[in-house]
């Protein structure tokens, strides 16, 4: 894992949830972990909603603050340019699609630590526009154009939220692997909820990553 | 003997409700003659405004809609997009088009909607009793500019043909008048050209017709025609402002 990790992808592919999980995990090992919520597209279910959880774990959150956290206006946290250039573990949560990645395009010229940066394309093949190669390769191309960075790897995030089962994950991941092969990108991680971890570990080994859902309202889980 | 002049097929038998000498009747007839001559009555849908011509749906013998004040271009836009092989025309007065409907007309033109707008400019609100319109001339007295329209108080009259001709989406923009026989003939020619522009898919077309309101101007119909020539045409020059050929 590099020192800057950027999470890009289609609208609703799971970027925020992944960025939170990766940041929290890094915080167990290292100090100076920063999560930048740069979702300018849509303020619903954004990582800024779990500020307290992050804070307790020692993750510093930078996002549209105060009244702007639910503001309908794009607002880039002022500190972000400095953060990009400092020694730290920076996790950047972008908004959906190429529109959400535009902010990265603006920031990319401040990046000096290119060799320490990973840019992930988060893919959930159960999302509209992500179930076919044409849609996926288009979103990849547009994101790279908008973000002015190359995507370095794919994070597979196949799920149907509460209705996910092993079959969903296995079939979905196979689909993601096919996309990855075509795009000539490595699948760096396969993310699954904790409840599937034990059964899937033997099959997928080191790419398997455990997810705790922080943004999903708990009351959805059995209604 | 052969008939050289009669009521066109594209008008119903209903009697116009307009005041004596009001040139709406002439303009209605010219549109209908164009529909007849182009043989497109059954392919045409017209949209009438709020204003004196609000009842125009009773007069045109084709499918017709009555619009909310100023919104006819929006209605025509959606209809043309969904029925691209049909002819859409809106019939709008100066309050409807240049005041409350300024947004709709400008954007229909900007988008290059393939519709034809017949814009009847008689310098005031006829329907509601002679109030000031965006096209009321400087110095002109109306019930809401009782001291005469002044540039400092009410501002300048809107030149819609010139304004819309600037838009890339406009394919044919022309201003005519119906104050004398030669100008009536020219108006018909312009309306036909506008409809042909629509048929060729070139973009937005509008004919602004300088018209009369003898009742609210306080003039006889004949005097009103002279008033158009003496007062309107000098400020609103006639002619084609935009002719896109392809």
């Amino acid at each position, binding site marked *: 894992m590099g020192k800057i990790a950027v999470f890009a992808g289609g609208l*609703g592919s799971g970027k925020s949830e992944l960025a939170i999980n990766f940041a929290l995990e890094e915080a167990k090992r290292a100090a100076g972990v920063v999560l930048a919520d740069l979702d300018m597209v849509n303020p619903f279910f954004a990582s800024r909603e779990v500020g307290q959880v992050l804070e307790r774990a020692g993750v510093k959150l930078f996002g549209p603050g105060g009244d702007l956290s639910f503001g309908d206006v794009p607002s880039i946290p002022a500190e972000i340019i400095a953060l990009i250039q400092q020694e730290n573990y920076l996790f950047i949560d972008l908004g959906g699609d190429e529109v959400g990645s535009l902010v990265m395009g603006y920031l990319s010229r401040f990046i000096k630590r290119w060799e320490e940066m990973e840019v992930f394309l988060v893919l959930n093949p159960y999302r*509209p526009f992500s179930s076919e190669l044409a849609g996926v390769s288009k979103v990849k191309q547009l994101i790279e154009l908008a973000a002015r960075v190359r995507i370095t790897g794919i994070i597979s995030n196949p799920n149907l*939220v509460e209705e996910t089962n092993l079959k969903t994950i296995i079939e979905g991941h196979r689909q993601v692997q096919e996309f990855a092969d075509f795009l000539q990108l490595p699948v760096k991680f396969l993310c699954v909820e904790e409840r599937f971890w034990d059964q899937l570990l033997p099959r997928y080994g080191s790419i398997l990553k455990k997810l705790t859902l922080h943004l999903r309202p708990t009351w959805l889980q059995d209604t | 003997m052969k008939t050289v002049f009669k009521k066109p097929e594209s008008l119903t038998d209903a009697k116009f409700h307009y005041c004596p000498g009001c040139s709406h009747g002439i303009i209605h007839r010219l549109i209908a003659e164009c529909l007849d001559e182009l043989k497109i009555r059954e392919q045409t849908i017209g949209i009438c405004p709020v204003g004196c011509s609000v*009842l125009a749906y009773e007069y045109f013998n084709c499918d017709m809609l009555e619009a909310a004040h100023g919104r006819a271009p*929006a209605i025509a836009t*959606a209809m043309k997009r969904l029925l691209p092989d049909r002819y859409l025309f809106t019939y709008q007065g100066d309050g409807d088009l240049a005041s409350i409907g300024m947004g709709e007309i*400008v954007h229909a033109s900007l988008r290059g909607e393939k519709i034809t707008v017949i814009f009847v400019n008689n310098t005031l609100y006829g329907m509601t009793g002679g109030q000031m319109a965006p096209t009321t001339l400087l110095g002109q007295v109306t019930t809401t500019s009782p001291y005469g329209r002044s540039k400092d108080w009410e501002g300048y009259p809107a030149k819609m043909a010139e304004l819309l001709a600037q838009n890339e989406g406009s394919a044919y923009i022309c201003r005519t008048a119906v104050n004398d026989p030669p100008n009536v003939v020219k108006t018909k020619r312009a309306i036909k050209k506008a409809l042909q522009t629509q048929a060729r898919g070139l973009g937005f077309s509008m004919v602004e017709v300088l018209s009369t309101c003898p009742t609210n101007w306080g003039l006889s119909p004949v005097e009103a025609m002279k008033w158009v020539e003496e007062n309107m045409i000098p400020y609103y020059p006639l002619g084609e402002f935009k002719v896109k050929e392809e």
Partner: protein
Amino acid sequence: MKKVLMKGNEALAEGALIAGCRGFFGYPITPSSEIAEYMARKLPKIGGAFIQAESELAAINMIYGGSSTGTRVMTASSGPGISLKQEGISFISEAELPCLIVNVSRGGPGLGGIQPSQADYFQATRGGGHGDYRIIVLAPSSSQEMMDLAILAFELADKYRTPVMIMAEGTLGNLMEPVIVREAVTEFLDKPWATTGCVGRKPNVINTLHLSQEELEGRNRHLTEKYKMISKNEKRAESFLLDDAEIVVVAFGLLARIIKKSVMEARKKGVKAGLIRPVTLWPFPDEHIQAVSRTARTILSVEINMGQMVEDIRLAAGGKIPVEFYGRIGFTPNPEEITRQLLFIAEREGLL
């Protein structure tokens, strides 16, 4: 059965396409914009029309024109935009043009905020614009219902020649859930009234102007008869644990789903609670309220506003049972908050 993970807004848009919607005319506003964005991507590929209008006024009049061609058309907006569209909705209602209008609501008055809200209940259920009219209002509570009610909305709109509104909280529009994608609708009603060019028939006129008193009154009586028919046929509500319920919560939308949890929690603690979830906000399912007002002890209306639906509940209850109100603004209460409220009422009423 193929499931797709969809935001409520996407599911609604896809539902509209499944229902045969081929025209979208709108103006962007959070939190409804995903509907327009989804339509902008899909409609041009299937021969439909998508226009981002210059204003809500233009958009709703494009709906007037679009529907006049006999095509299934829709628009989507949020509170301030829906206010601007009211003139057009009044015209569309009087012209009896079928269409779907979506309000992914936000808080008000004024610009308010984009947080979850149900504050447009009055506007939606009373018609909203000028004149004597009503529109059918549907309130989905899941992504699946966003799709299914969009399909139903077009069916009802065509059947009764009326605008139908779907009203959803912004949270529902943005919440992702697995959705079963329905089969495309293939049967449509004939629309002999449509203005499509009068080839081989007499001209059609679509008009809302009625100069004579007799004609105007006749039109209003005709519409009223239609609204009575809709009231008779189309009331819909979901009942949950009502059989022995002593405290009945009434709530709609996504909020109602959360309150199901509260009801179950309260029952675990000995409170006989139940829930009525109106699916049609107009026509309001008053028979459901009347039924429980004979059997329950009290009704609690929970809304994300300062008390709007509670008035319809009181009208339906006709004074037979106390009706109380609990509301929040810009915030969807979590299940525990409502459970606490139920326990408080139960204790006060001696029901524990």
